[in-house]
């Protein structure tokens, strides 16, 4: 037997053993496997991709990453990963990694030194600030950045430069979920954790292709359903997706017309006796636009949403709506999981409110196996941006710019005058890029995101990117956004830096530095720190020599807040598989359910009061009054751009499994591009027949914002009247055709619905 064969067989055996261990099976008893072998150093970390927060073990040997495996001890994924794991290593070593700073000279980006690049940015930003004020500058970050990175950006822009024009791409994906949690439950982020999955009897997947977008969550649901055949799955989605293979019932609404369905389900639940009257009386208030109302008013409101009326509005048969409501009502426990299908809407907050309503009126919240649980799309949208305060109205640790006491508290920690922090929110994302177009914002720093491709109605915003001074800090080059950059700064990538990611379930997890940054790449937090020093804030940024210093300062700001992270020190996070806040002390294990017994905030402040009132929950968040959650009366509202005779089709967009976001990571692999080489448009077979369009024929999609050619994929996936285009490709940036109308509350754009038409090319 040759050495080569032995080595290969050993790796294969290790791989099989690892898979077996993932389900508690021992294939090769007594054998030593990969994690003990071959001089590999294993580093506990977190996956770089979506918001699930899977634990990964990174295998490093002689400064090189040689293997990845699921972390069996991590409760999020129990050692299982999704197929993106195949690409984790490849992304680190992609040929498109940027290794040196670049400055645009004579219209072309050319290599420069760090000194020259940062001097230029500091000089230009200071010139703009001096001539036009701090609000002429802006920062646009990412739900993929670490909490420490967003923290540095917040301090530089809000605390030192003096502008609240600080946003991040979670505005485009999760802002409506934030608005929903705040307005319904009084505080952002879910009540429960993933462990509710294994206790739920019913899953209501609304606007979520869980199988493709959150595969590990889907697998947990499937594993649970396999063991418990009575578990049911109801899907609400205008498109058939791989998630359908396990559905017990699928409701297909017209895109943008599902609010009536949630209201109709609530009506059936109440009319047929599934409401929890005691929970309603003790824990809830009913509200509409006029303020607090009584339960009778809510019931009268719902009379406008019989299943038959909802059918007329949504296109979903009344009997299916009734069936879904009964399944929800009969199940002892239920989890609703949703994502962009509800959030990226003109009424995204309302859609979120109506999901919460179903759980609140039935009392299916605050008990094991029941929760209204928003899934996030990026790995640190929750931790870095929602909790870290990376939006224009927030400060770190769930503090608000509009509150004087919050500004004073944060300013004191930052060592800046409180007056530096502006008392009004800055510009939200769409307003920010509009202001860039208009020249009101003259300088922008973009970190770890690609807005030239990802913004809705994207072409409209290229003007500002081209005309104003734009700095892009990125790990990959080129992107559509670097095409407009005046300066491009090479950023260290995952495994080349340490920091914390906070995932969907309130879990903060530490990621170690495993290998040195490639080329001259630097950690984003250090780039921002050094830029701050060069801009004249030497004293303010002098102390940030390590990531731990930044994290400790940040977690100090969470003390006493609903998202208390004081017990999550680096020392502790390095040992455990994350901690779910509130975690107030180093000996606290983290919290499973908020607002009830076991939550340290509830136990210490509200348990006694709740007991007196005969309650099992107390919604103590900043937006709740008297500890009560809110059932909102949200009426049907059309999408911003309904279909009409001129544009009769609803265009909706989304992901495919093979690619991620704007393909900066996944787009460079030839094999993958061969597998899914081009964007395409899915057309319902009936629509295709009516338009005489054949499969694989070239067609042109037109919206009021432009036109683009695609290959037709005639397939029974989108509901009739709907077309679907995946949004990843730079050469077919479908977001150019999407509408940039946004939710008036969350300011999240309505990517999911635009009026369109198709013609043959």
């Amino acid at each position, binding site marked *: 037997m040759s050495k080569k064969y032995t080595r290969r067989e050993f790796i*294969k055996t290790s791989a099989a053993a690892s*898979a077996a261990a993932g*389900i508690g099976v021992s*294939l090769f008893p007594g054998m030593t496997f990969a994690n003990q072998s071959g001089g590999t150093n294993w580093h506990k970390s977190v996956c770089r991709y979506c918001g699930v927060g899977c634990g990964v073990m990174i295998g490093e040997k002689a400064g090189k990453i040689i293997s990845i495996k699921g972390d069996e001890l991590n409760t999020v994924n129990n050692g299982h990963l*999704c197929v993106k794991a195949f690409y984790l290593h490849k992304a680190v070593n992609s040929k498109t990694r940027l290794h040196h700073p670049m400055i645009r000279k004579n219209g072309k980006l050319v290599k420069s030194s760090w000194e020259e690049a940062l001097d230029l940015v500091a000089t230009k930003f200071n010139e703009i600030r001096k001539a036009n004020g701090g609000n002429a500058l802006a920062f646009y970050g990412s739900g993929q950045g670490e909490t420490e990175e967003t923290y540095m950006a917040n301090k530089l822009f809000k605390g030192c430069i003096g502008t609240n024009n600080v946003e991040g791409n979670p505005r485009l994906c999760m802002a409506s979920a934030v608005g929903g949690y705040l307005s319904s439950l009084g505080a952002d982020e879910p009540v429960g954790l993933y462990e509710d999955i294994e206790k739920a009897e019913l899953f209501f997947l609304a606007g979520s292709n869980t199988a493709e977008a959150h595969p590990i969550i*889907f697998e947990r649901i*499937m594993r649970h359903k396999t063991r418990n055949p009575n578990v049911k799955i109801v899907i609400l989605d205008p498109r058939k997706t791989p998630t359908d293979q396990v559905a017990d019932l699928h409701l297909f609404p017209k895109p943008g017309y599902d609010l009536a369905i949630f209201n109709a389900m609530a009506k059936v639940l109440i009319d047929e006796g599934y409401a929890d009257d005691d929970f309603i009386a003790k824990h809830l208030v009913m509200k509409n636009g006029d303020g607090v109302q009584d339960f009778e008013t809510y019931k009268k409101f719902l009379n406008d949403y019989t299943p038959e009326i909802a059918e007329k509005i949504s296109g979903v048969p009344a009997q299916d709506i009734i069936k879904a409501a009964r399944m929800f009502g009969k199940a002892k426990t239920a989890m609703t999981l949703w994502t962009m299908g509800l959030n990226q809407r003109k009424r995204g907050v309302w859609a979120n409110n109506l999901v919460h309503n179903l759980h609140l009126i039935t009392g299916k919240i605050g008990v094991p196996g029941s929760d209204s649980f928003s899934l996030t799309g990026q790995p640190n949208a929750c931790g870095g941006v929602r909790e870290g305060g990376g939006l224009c109205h927030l400060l770190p640790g769930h503090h608000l710019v509009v509150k004087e006491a919050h500004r004073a508290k944060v300013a004191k920690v930052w060592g800046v005058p409180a007056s530096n922090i502006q008392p009004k929110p800055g510009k939200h994302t769409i307003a920010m890029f509009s202001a860039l177009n208009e020249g009101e914002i003259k300088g922008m720093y973009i970190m770890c995101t690609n807005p030239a491709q990802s913004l809705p109605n994207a072409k409209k915003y290229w003007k500002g990117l081209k005309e104003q001074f734009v700095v892009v800090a990125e790990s990959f080059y080129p992107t559509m956004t670097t095409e407009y950059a005046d300066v491009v700064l090479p950023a260290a990538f995952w495994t080349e830096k340490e920091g914390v990611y906070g995932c969907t379930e309130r879990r903060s997890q530490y990621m170690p530095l495993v290998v040195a940054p490639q080329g001259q790449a630097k950690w984003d937090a250090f780039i921002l720190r050094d830029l701050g020093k060069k801009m004249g804030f030497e004293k303010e940024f002098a102390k940030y020599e390590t990531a731990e210093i930044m994290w400790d300062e940040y977690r100090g700001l969470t003390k006493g807040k609903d998202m208390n992270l004081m017990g999550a020190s680096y020392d502790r996070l390095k040992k455990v598989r994350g901690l779910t806040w509130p975690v107030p002390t180093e000996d606290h294990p983290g919290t499973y359910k908020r607002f009830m017994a076991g939550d340290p905030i509830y136990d210490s402040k509200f348990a006694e009061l709740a007991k007196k009132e005969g309650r099992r929950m107390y919604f103590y968040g900043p937006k709740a009054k008297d500890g009560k959650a809110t059932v909102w009366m949200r009426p049907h509202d059309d999408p911003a751009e309904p279909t009409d005779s001129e544009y009769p089709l609803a265009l909706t967009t989304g992901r495919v499994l093979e690619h991620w976001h704007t393909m900066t990571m996944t787009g460079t692999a030839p094999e993958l591009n061969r597998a899914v080489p081009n964007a395409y448009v899915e057309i319902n077979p009936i629509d295709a027949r009516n338009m005489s369009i054949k499969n694989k024929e070239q067609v042109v999609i037109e919206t009021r914002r432009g036109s683009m050619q695609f290959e037709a994929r005639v397939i029974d996936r989108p509901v009739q009247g709907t077309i679907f285009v995946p949004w990843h490709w730079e050469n077919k940036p479908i977001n150019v055709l999407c509408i940039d109308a946004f939710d008036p509350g969350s300011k999240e754009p309505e990517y999911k619905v635009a009026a369109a038409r198709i013609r043959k090319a």
Partner: protein
Amino acid sequence: MPIAGVLILTNIEEAQEVLVNLNTVENVTTYGIHKQNYIIAVLEGDTPKSLEILSQSITNGISGVIGVYPTYVNYEDDEAEG
């Protein structure tokens, strides 16, 4: 050549048929059905992406497969080849 250990989740009633089909796929080695509907397998490919493509073809091309979930991926290309 990258190697991955994966769990292939199937419909319970189709697990045996999936196993038979998997055994005809090049670069796939199976290790039986476990816990009713998990098949343990090792995938081999020329590149990490070819592993992903292989897993996609299993997911989309074999009836009864619900999902493919890697637990271990080794990229030790040169060293693996000795």
